[in-house]
């Protein structure tokens, strides 16, 4: 579906000699392809020779597979449809000024669904590790690792979108939330802190200073102070001095009663105090403490030197902003992100994920959606994201592209679900929200479902009558009636015939049963 996606070009060979040179295919159901060998052309003079009909001919059904159909990820589908439906009803019922609260809540629900799946997958991975001697195939472990990766990326993007676009409580002052975002997604310093503090002599642990730097860069100043207090020279002047600076760093609170101007003044005052102490040589005895102070002064060179502690450009960007521009707003992020990428240029390759995050920093919603589509192989994430964004901007009434884009994505996702053997019911729940095209697709999908038993037929009829698709009900009843007739079950055939309200069919069946009775 997406030609620019490199992974789409995988080749599958059908292990059947009959197919050589004669393979033919036809689209079947919604999204699968039926493959079969063409009949050989036999010459008229060669009728007696061995014909292909004597060898068994097999047909192959090719279905698109996706990480979403795996046992773990499948739960995401049903959980998210619940959140999706409740979002639609909550938005229509809420008053306009409550919209944001509703959207933030639903966004967090989506995030917790992804996090729950991450947790499940992690538990399964650990259980598999413990059972390695059972001879589990390595591919399941690989699949789980890939799934973890995908889930991590989705959660990262979703949380960034939440704080940039959806959660407007902080009135545009993003730094605190960005810092929290980084803290949540880069927990390695938290872990190292635990390791370092538990060791016998923390200050001699090789990771000691790195952990301190890491905590400072993530804004976890209390953690940094805790680790520093474990140093044997913690009572000396330089240490006390740095402790004081760390303690006194101002953080902006939106409802703290302090205006932006006041806060900026305080912050400048604090930073100039840091610079003063540095110049006066308070930390001349320890180059480590000097480095910490330089970070606090917002010295770009020092921060860049510690790039290996930060892994990614967005971490670098947030750490830089923390110490250079605490009143950052959304429109600053575009420049800041470009800047961070430039500084980190030699250390990393720009991936598709980075494109998504960059687009978010540029506040370009369409680009975010488009980049997401490039990254993911199925529309699950993109669909729900677009739905959230659509509701966020809908009441502003300015956007022309988002509504049809959302509908298109929902239809796409629903079509993919409808082609799955067991998720067709979920597909119908989505199609209810896709306008007239959704209704049309729903009818088509319902009529093409394989009916395996009476209860399955009743469920299809139930879904069709809820949506007032009379044609589908009639059609299903006719199919069941015809089937019953061919099995000689005339009572059932008449019953289905009556349901179908098809007079001609019912009378035909009645006639058959009368003939049988004769």
């Amino acid at each position: 579906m997406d030609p620019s996606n490199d992974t789409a070009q995988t080749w599958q060979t059908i292990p059947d000699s009959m197919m050589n040179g004669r393979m033919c295919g036809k689209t079947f159901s919604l999204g699968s392809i039926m493959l079969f060998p063409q009949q050989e052309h036999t010459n008229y003079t060669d009728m007696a020779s061995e014909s292909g009909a004597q060898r068994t001919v097999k047909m192959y059904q090719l279905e698109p597979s996706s990480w979403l159909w795996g046992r773990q990820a499948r739960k995401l589908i049903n959980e998210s449809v619940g959140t999706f439906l409740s979002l639609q009803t909550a938005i229509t019922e809420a008053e306009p000024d409550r919209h944001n609260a509703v959207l933030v809540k639903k966004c967090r629900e989506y995030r917790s669904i992804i996090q729950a799946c991450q947790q499940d997958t992690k538990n399964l991975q650990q259980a598999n590790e413990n059972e390695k001697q059972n001879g589990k195939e390595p591919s399941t472990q690989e699949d789980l690792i890939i799934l973890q990766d995908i889930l991590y990326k989705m959660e990262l993007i979703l949380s960034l979108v939440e704080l940039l676009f959806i959660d407007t409580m902080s009135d545009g002052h993003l730094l605190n939330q960005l810092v929290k975002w980084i803290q949540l997604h880069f927990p390695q310093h938290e872990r190292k802190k635990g390791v370092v503090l538990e060791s016998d002599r923390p200050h001699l642990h090789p990771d000691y200073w790195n952990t301190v730097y890491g905590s400072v860069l993530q804004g976890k100043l209390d953690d940094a102070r805790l680790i520093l207090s474990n140093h044997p020279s913690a009572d000396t002047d330089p240490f006390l001095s740095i402790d004081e600076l760390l303690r006194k760093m101002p953080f902006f609170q939106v409802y703290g009663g302090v205006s932006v101007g006041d806060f900026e003044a305080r912050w400048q005052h604090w930073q100039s105090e840091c610079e003063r102490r540095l110049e006066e040589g308070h930390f001349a005895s320890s180059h480590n403490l000097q480095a910490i102070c330089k970070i606090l002064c917002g010295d770009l060179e020092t921060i860049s030197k510690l790039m290996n502690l930060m892994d990614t450009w967005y971490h670098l960007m947030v750490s830089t902003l923390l110490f250079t521009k605490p009143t950052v707003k959304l429109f600053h992020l575009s420049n800041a992100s470009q800047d961070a990428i430039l500084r980190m240029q030699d250390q990393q390759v720009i991936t598709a994920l980075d494109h998504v995050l960059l687009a978010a920093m540029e506040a370009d919603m369409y680009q975010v959606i488009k980049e997401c589509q490039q990254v993911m192989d199925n529309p699950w994430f993109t669909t729900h994201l677009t739905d959230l964004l659509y509701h966020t901007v809908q009441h502003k009434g300015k956007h022309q592209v988002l509504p049809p884009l959302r509908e298109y994505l929902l239809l796409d996702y629903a079509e993919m679900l409808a082609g799955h053997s067991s998720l067709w019911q979920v597909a119908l729940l989505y199609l209810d929200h896709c306008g007239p095209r959704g209704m049309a697709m729903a009818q088509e999908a319902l009529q093409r479902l394989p009916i395996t038993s009476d209860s399955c037929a009743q469920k299809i009829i139930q879904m069709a009558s809820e949506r007032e698709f009379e044609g589908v009900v009639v059609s299903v009843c006719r199919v069941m009636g015809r089937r019953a007739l061919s099995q000689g079950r005339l009572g059932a055939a008449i019953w289905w015939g009556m349901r179908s309200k098809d007079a001609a069919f019912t009378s035909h069946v009645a006639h058959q049963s009368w003939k049988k009775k004769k």
Partner: protein
Amino acid sequence: MAGSKLRRYVGQKVSVVRWRPPATHYGDTDTFLTGTWNDPENTVGVWRTPESDDDPVPISSLPHQGDVSDIQYVTRDSFMVGSSTGGVRLYRHSAEGDLEAVNCWDKVHAFTTGPAPCTSLACSGEQIASVGEDGKLVIINPNQKKPARVLEGVGGCSLYAVMFVRTHEVLTSSMQGHLKLWDLRASQTAKGLLFSPDQVAVCNLAGHPTQQHLVAAGGEDGTLALWDMRNTAHPFTIIAAHNGPVCQVQFHPVAPEHLFTCGMDGQLLHWDASASAKPSHLSYKGTQDLSGGSVTVWLGSEVSRGATDTTCILQSPLPINSLDVEGATLIAGSDNEAIYVLGQLLKKRIDDMVY
């Protein structure tokens, strides 16, 4: 009736949930089975609900051919599973918590052209009754390889539900809405009952735990009918319950003035007739019998007027296929690929019952 509500997604559509019978008559049970449908790899799974209000935990599972249409316990450790391939299998809980297959009867139900799904099972002592879409009632003895009796229906209609009224009497319901009572000691049916003139299919039957003549039937048009078997001309009452076919009906085994139904409209309803419980003037020696479920509360005038206290305790966007209630906990499985565990239902009532 406050209670805890848990929902756990399992990644497969759940067609049947069944509590394992408790070890003692008034004890609790924490293990239940689930059966799935509409999946290329259907399974029968064992789950345990922990003491605290946590999600149920899967213990083990066994793959199953075809959709699971019904599960019924024969003894505390062994149970029967009916399949959409027309076969019935007997399994047992092993000591380690796994499941073992003990016996299987394939092709118990079949059309002339192929396999027919088995739709429902019922057990009484050592006899298992199975009905299917081919219209046959088959009696199976768990120790024998071949079915003991095969009773054909006439008319070629699917049978949807079966239950034992007494040890030798079986009630079946068909797609045409006929309730038929079979006497297994004789070789012919005892009576035939008509549900309603509109030929509304009866999808599920449930027997009152203590009053054997009282049967609740869930219909395909969403109605709940209460039958008094002593007066079989017409149902005692028909109440409009759901907006779609009723999938399962069940009386609470210990507090039978509470009835639960679930349907394809995604609702699970709790019918509470205890408010209209009053001393029955038919009881022996005119004694007042207020507790323990008044003898005829379901057949009283209040219920016939539809004056029961009905609450919707669960709402799902997709059909709820099955429910089972034991003690104070109710489990339900739905096409939403979720298992629901509702705890502390009827708490006050159950506490009253302990004596």
